[in-house]
């Protein structure tokens, strides 16, 4: 009994402490926004160097993925500096750790803009972190370059979406599954905005295309207990699993999947958030033969990619793979550089105006910025995990697909918002 009352009181102490710190940080945010109208938040581009913000989770459950993005950003900055910088100014990268925690992302974004006066920020991975920083970038009118595929249904005047939107990844993936005759799907995802929205889109697609959804399950982000979900998947009679799990929950999921005797042959899993780096750390033995949907693989042919892979491995180690979000992060810095140079200025309004039609011969192939939606044209690619841990392309869309974040081009998507 005594133990109980102690823990209750302890809980209360904890809660009030959390409440107090929340109140304090709210005050901080308030004073921050007061200075926003003043010159305090304006990017400082007067000196020989220009600061750029790198905002990634360097710790926590998302670090497994985001550290590689951070490395790719640093590589692009280094290369640009070696080639003379942007408008004659060297870039100075300022790294902030979002720590896999969305309020922390917002806090660090504000610090980058108001304290460091960065000209642009590159980063974020989860949609939850992007949604958390979106109002910050909009309030201070500062640009964010977001490098990861996401659930679409969003546009922001101050965010450039360099990763795929749904019609460049999820819709082609569904088309592919349908073509293979895998029409009964089971949806497994992390419990936050990207998987839930993605699954809403998948359900709408399935309804219009005669596919059947056998079940839908979510696990909390960072969860490592998947035995029940795997049992449900096994019993559901599905043809394939559509996996929108993020971060290292995938480790636990695929370990459990193999333990339950399920394989890529008996019940394939198509994942949209597992790239080469994750394959390597989850363990190739758990993933061999499984499918992924992205716009870029380390094995994507082309001179630009050969150069990118060589440069990355020279900087971070021969055994380090490159992946889609890394590539998108890497080209996002180059796209920003081209926009700034076309505009002849770091001023955000001029950069935005110059963005439409910016083209780059990227490692993934040709990409073009669509100024209206601030997304890019990208080629969709389905791949299969090989025994060496690399992903081999099994299908591609042939040409870059125009970004359609609100899926206006699809009649079945009319009810989504």
């Amino acid at each position, binding site marked *: 009994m005594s133990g109980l009352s102690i823990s209750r009181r302890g809980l209360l102490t904890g809660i009030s402490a959390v409440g107090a710190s929340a109140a304090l940080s709210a005050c901080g945010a308030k004073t921050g926004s007061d200075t926003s109208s003043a010159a305090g938040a304006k990017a400082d581009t007067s000196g020989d160097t220009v600061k750029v913000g790198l905002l990634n989770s360097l*710790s*926590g459950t998302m*670090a497994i993925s985001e550290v590689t993005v951070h490395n790719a950003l640093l590589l692009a900055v280094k290369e640009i500096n070696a080639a003379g910088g942007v408008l004659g100014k060297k870039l100075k990268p300022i790294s902030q750790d979002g720590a896999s925690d969305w309020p922390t992302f917002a806090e660090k974004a504000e610090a980058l803009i108001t304290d460091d006066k960065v000209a642009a920020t590159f980063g974020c991975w989860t949609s939850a972190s992007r949604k958390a920083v979106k109002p910050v970038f909009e309030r201070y009118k500062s640009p964010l370059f977001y490098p990861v595929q996401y659930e679409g249904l969003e546009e922001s005047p101050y965010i450039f979406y360099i990763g795929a939107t749904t019609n460049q990844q999820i819709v082609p993936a569904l088309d592919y599954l349908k073509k293979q005759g895998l029409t009964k799907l089971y949806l497994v995802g992390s419990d936050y905005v990207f998987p839930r929205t993605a699954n809403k889109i998948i359900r709408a697609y399935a309804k219009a295309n005669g596919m059947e959804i056998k079940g839908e399950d979510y696990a909390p982000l960072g969860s490592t207990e998947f035995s029940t*979900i795997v049992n449900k998947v096994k*019993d559901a009679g599905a043809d394939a699993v559509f996996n929108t799990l993020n971060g290292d929950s995938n480790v636990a999921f695929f*370990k459990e999947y193999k333990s339950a*005797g399920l394989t890529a042959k008996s019940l394939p899993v198509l994942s949209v958030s597992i790239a080469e780096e994750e394959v390597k750390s989850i363990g190739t033995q758990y993933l061999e033969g499984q499918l992924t949907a992205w716009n870029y693989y380390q094995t994507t042919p082309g001179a630009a990619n050969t150069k990118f892979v060589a440069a990355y491995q020279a900087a971070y180690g021969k055994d380090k793979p490159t992946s889609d979000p890394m590539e998108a992060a890497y080209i996002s810095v180059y796209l920003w550089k081209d926009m700034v140079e076309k505009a002849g200025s770091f001023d955000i309004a001029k950069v935005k105006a110059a963005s439409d039609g910016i083209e780059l011969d990227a490692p993934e192939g040709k990409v073009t910025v669509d100024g209206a939606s601030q997304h890019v044209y990208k080629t969709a690619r389905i791949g299969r995990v090989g025994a060496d841990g690399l992903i081999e392309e099994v299908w591609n869309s042939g040409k870059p697909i125009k970004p359609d974040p609100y899926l206006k081009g699809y009649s079945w998507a009319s009810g989504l918002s």
Partner: protein
Amino acid sequence: MTVILNQSFTGISIGAVLLLIALGLTLTFGQMGVINMAHGEFIMAGAYTTYVLQKSISSAGVSLLVALPLAFLVAGAMGALLEWLLIRRLYTRPLDTLLVTWGVSLMLQQLARDIFGAPNVQTSAPDLLTGNISLGGGITFANSRLFILGLALLCVLGLTLILRLTPLGRRIRAVVQNRDLAEVSGIATGQVDRITFFIGSGLAGVAGVALTLVGPIGPTMGTNYIVDAFLVVVVGGIGRLKGSVITAFALGVLQSVLEYSTTVSVAKVIVLVAIVAFLQWRPQGLYTLRTRSLA
């Protein structure tokens, strides 16, 4: 029928993980009244011990077997050190132990981040443990889960034997029942405390080794489990081994059955509501310790 069997096994295997983690807490929270928030970090220490061993011993099977006793020693030593440095000064102030060990837990997480890097890491399981036993008709038992179940039962058996049969166990029970009387009877209570803490923390280390078979290893992995483990101890009846064993398996089965018929989040909510209702009915938990001490 297949579903029921598979789900029951899943529930029991979740219960086994909970039990492994709660065993150490039953000793330190239950028997000594210390709210050890750093218990989760001892789990982490055990998991990282496995990781380090696998880096140096290439065979996954051998490294796992070596990791079990070594993780027990490493986590146990950390626990004994914590007891000697801080906790022994706070035995009469249980709330303070909560705050102090919470601080220690944050420091240990940061230390792990500095040593092993912020991203989580993985170990690969021995081939034997990645497969499953199929009984036909779709009934399968994952080998890794069977291993964890066996490990949990072995730890319960070992702990029971120590507490029931050895002189050390008699001394631990005496200190728990009446510290002052034990002291005047010539038992070095301080020493008993340290050994108890060593065993309790060591068991957390063993739990850490088991968890490497299930998921990733990271600085914050312990925090995922600490609340559930406290629930097991409180519901089971503070300080009662039997209560913890029954509660861990009951919660595991309840959780997995609910998860199967609803969703992960809904199952968590229902389990918590059930626990609150249960504690209203039996505030002392499933089993109560009869004690002669006045506390």
